[in-house]
């Protein structure tokens, strides 16, 4: 038996979007570090901030889905 709501589908879509976003950030950060290993710490900080912004959007969706 399938129970649930449209909100769950929405949360799933948001998770897909955020996954793609964070994947892109991670891959670009890795490329950047590989090209310039001495800038690794700066790239990591910038990566974390960008990832937090993407993650926040996904979590907004989860909050909306829960409410």
């Amino acid at each position: 038996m399938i129970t649930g709501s449209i909100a769950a589908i929405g949360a799933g879509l948001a998770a897909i979007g955020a996954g793609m976003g964070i994947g892109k950030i991670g891959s670009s950060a890795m490329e950047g570090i590989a090209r310039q290993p001495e800038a690794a710490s700066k790239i990591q900080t910038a990566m974390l901030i960008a990832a937090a912004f993407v993650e926040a959007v996904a979590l907004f969706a989860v909050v909306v889905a829960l409410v």
Partner: protein
Amino acid sequence: MDCSHVFEFKVNRLIVVFTLFLAFFFVTPVLYAQEDTSKTTEAAHAEPEAEKKFNLGKFALHHIADSHSWHVIGDYYIGLPVMLYTQSGLVAFNSSDFHQDDEAELVVEKGGERFVKMHEKIYYASEKANEHGQYVEVDEAHHVKNKRPLDFSMTKNVCTLLLSIIVILAVFLKVANGYKVRKGKSPKGLQSWLEPIILFVRDDIAKPNLGHKYERFMPYLLTVFFFIWFNNMIGLVPFLPGGANLTGNIAVTVVLASITFIMVVANGNKYYWGHIFTPDVPWWLYIVLVPVEIIGIFTKPIALAIRLFANISAGHILVLALIGLIFVFNSYLVSFVSVPFALFIYGIELLVAFIQAFIFTILSALFIGMAIEEHH
């Protein structure tokens, strides 16, 4: 690590006061709890069908929510003080008077008023019980129609907040004292644990974002960083002193974000306000740009509050959902999968606890930095 020396300090007076305060509420509830056990077992025998259905969503949301009593183990709860501002003045009593009733079935009469508790909210009780034995009126959408008194109770979150204040004060007064006692010498003990983290906040968060005026904002940034980090960690402790999910409470994060908002507004210079009200664009674009910029002032702290709240709540729900799977499938075999996975998520949560404190602090620094930036 030997932590005993931490408590032989000025703050121990505070700790004693807090312990005595809690102890006052400790004594009665345990006795109540013993009486309760017999009651609940009778109830369980009476309706076994209703008990069997396990609702995962309800279970998870109940566990991350604030509560009027503090669950110890099994049927044992610590009753916390309930303080209500009612029509006939201030009323205070112990939440164990409700006997863990959360379905408005038990009426408590105090100060000439009758109260019931339903889903951790306290209502004025109705004259008569409805068909489910509840002393409240419920409409079709299961919303309670009864009036509510103003609730100033010491809930689980309030107690955890006081506890974390004591822990943070104990740790940081000790560290600050270390710098006075061992002036010019190498740090020792707690001091050498915290010094790199304090330097990390200064060198990686404050200096790059705030420039040469960073020193003015260091007290705020350090406070907010360690407050969020310590509370995230206390929230991850699953048993008594922890388990209250303080930073996963929207009210707490909104207050933290409001402080950042006030710091930005109070420190904004003429260039910052100039960018908002008279941006460097053709005048007819002002119709679009000025409202957008004004909304931007408010969305930044709102996003800050929701990010912290949602991250911490999501982590807690994830762990609870994985453990809850065992009860959904009603089989011991599921635990071989869900327990290791829950432990893995717990490990990630330790990282998230730090990252979220870092993100909140660095974004606060970034927003303040934008407000105080000089024109070039």
